[in-house]
């Protein structure tokens, strides 16, 4: 299939929109693609999909446990099922269905967590998913992916449809600039180096990679600090080979994620580094263990330093 999204110049679309467009492209040629929704076709940008492929969408209504159980039952008959629901509900309310009906029973459902992390902003903690990496990392037979830009999103959806394995993909709804002009290197389980630099490594995932890249440009321009930027789109299985390679120099490693600092990308990297005797200066950036500050996604990012200036400051401190 022709890749087009990564060639569009300038500001990209929301990853959610790319998810929907990609799914429509796939469904044109594959009647086994079935979308299952929980009154979430609007927030999942799936209204055009429903109009074009009315026989390939199953509406469940607001009942997330049932959404995942039914999705698993459909997937067991050989269909390529995309179960779409806000990440906060999908990975908490339906956790047992994900654990048993999808992962343990090995029904290859593509679990699509929409408006993930703090994308819902001022709607508050009920609507935030800051636990999903942690919860699903502890579930055997589950791939966890948070694409950073439109290219990664398109590739993740296309490859997930062909994968035939339980997988969780989470998307935000902010427009995401393209990280690289031309790309053809997306593969689950393989982190992407977006920028090379010798002084430290910043490993981001999902919508945090972009502010990390912005911070890297300023680190170089203003302070002469050269940072490597990695989009670690696959949280599990984690790209240990790449982390080891980046850690060899002994230079600092900073991780950034739109997730609790507990149990996510940062701690996954930390445990690997500790167990393999790497002692690089190391810091985890994310949402701390407290009642999350209120405000928009940008407000929350700024408050906790998951922003160009916040990452810049943390990187400078870590390098010094």
């Amino acid at each position, binding site marked *: 299939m022709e890749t087009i999204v990564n060639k569009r110049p300038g500001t990209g679309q929301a990853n959610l929109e790319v998810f929907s467009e990609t799914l429509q492209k796939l469904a044109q040629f594959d009647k086994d693609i*079935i979308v299952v929704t929980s009154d979430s076709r609007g927030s999942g940008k799936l209204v055009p999909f429903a109009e074009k492929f009315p*026989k390939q969408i*199953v509406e*469940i*209504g607001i*009942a997330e*446990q*049932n959404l*995942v*159980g*039914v*999705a*698993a*039952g*459909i*997937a*067991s*008959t*050989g*269909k390529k099922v995309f179960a779409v629901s806000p990440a906060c509900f999908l990975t908490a309310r339906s956790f*047992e*269905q994900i654990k*048993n*009906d999808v992962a*343990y*029973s*090995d*029904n290859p459902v593509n679990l699509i967590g929409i408006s993930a992390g703090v994308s819902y902003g001022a709607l508050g903690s009920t609507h935030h998913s800051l636990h999903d990496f942690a919860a699903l990392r502890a579930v055997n037979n589950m791939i966890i992916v948070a694409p950073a830009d439109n290219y990664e999103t398109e590739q993740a959806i296309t490859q997930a449809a062909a994968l035939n394995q339980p997988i969780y993909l989470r998307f935000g709804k902010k427009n995401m600039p393209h990280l690289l002009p031309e790309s053809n290197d997306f593969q689950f389980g393989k982190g992407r180096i977006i920028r090379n630099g010798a002084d430290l490594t910043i490993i981001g995932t999902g919508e945090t990679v972009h502010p990390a890249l912005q911070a890297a440009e300023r680190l170089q321009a203003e302070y002469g600090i050269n940072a490597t930027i990695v989009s670690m789109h696959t949280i599990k299985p984690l790209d240990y080979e790449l982390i080891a390679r980046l850690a060899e120099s002994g230079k600092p490693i900073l991780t950034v994620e739109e997730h609790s600092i507990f149990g996510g990308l940062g701690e996954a990297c930390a445990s690997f580094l500790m167990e393999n005797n790497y002692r690089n200066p190391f810091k985890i950036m994310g949402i701390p263990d407290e009642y999350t500050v209120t405000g928009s996604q940008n407000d929350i990012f700024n408050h906790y330093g998951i922003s160009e200036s916040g990452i810049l400051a943390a990187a400078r401190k870590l390098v010094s």
Partner: protein
Amino acid sequence: MMTEKELQTKSIEYRKKILKYIYGAKAGHTGGSLSCVDILNVLYNTTMNVGPENIKSADRDRYVQSKGHCVEALFVVLADKGFFPETDLETLCKYKSHYIGHPTKKVNGVEQNTGALGHGLPLSVGMAISAKLDGKDYKVFTLLGDGELPEGSNWEAALTASHYKLDNLCAIIDHNKLQITGKTSDVCNTDPIDQKFESFGWSVKHVDGHDHLQLKAILASMPFEENKPSLIIAHTIKGKGVSYMEDQIKWHHGVPSEEEYTSALQELDHTLASL
């Protein structure tokens, strides 16, 4: 087609084997396995189009055991149908055996890994929806315990089943009226089950869950109504067939002693001789 006496004979053989393997493993859900085994007997020997020869076929009928803990009944019936050698059951609940205390797909013939309650109906609804999407005419059967009815996911799936007019779906409730704590009506009263499901858009029938001919006839008559999912409330006795186990909570997951095991086999042999 099997006669009533042949079905009755099979059920007694199944009961003896359930007790044999539970006694051997020193673990199992004795009472519930004995209450549901007549239903499984009739499903696998008269109703469903599924066997080792077509278990990979996309057109096979499906069975999902939501009350996964009564796996011993399922294993004994699947072994009898030739899905695996019965000697495999000697490893029941042993280190590294696939024959554990709940169904898993590692065992040939098992459709889904169950054990957590309230999961069988949503999974079955998904399979039934898929059949409708593909215009296939296979049927989906699922067995629920009455004690698992308070799980909310059952009621979510009950709504979906009637919303999508799943007349290719049949849920059977093994209504033995007991659960681990006591009477289901005392723990969390779900009566009247029939009216609840009817109000959710299901067509409901009651049956004596130990009467093979009644079970056979009612299963053959599904869908009970066009465009509606079917529910069978099978009235059963926990521990059925072994008089000292019948209707006793102790035997929810009680394991017989040597003396109790011998006495149970004698009683079942006596019943067999008097058929």
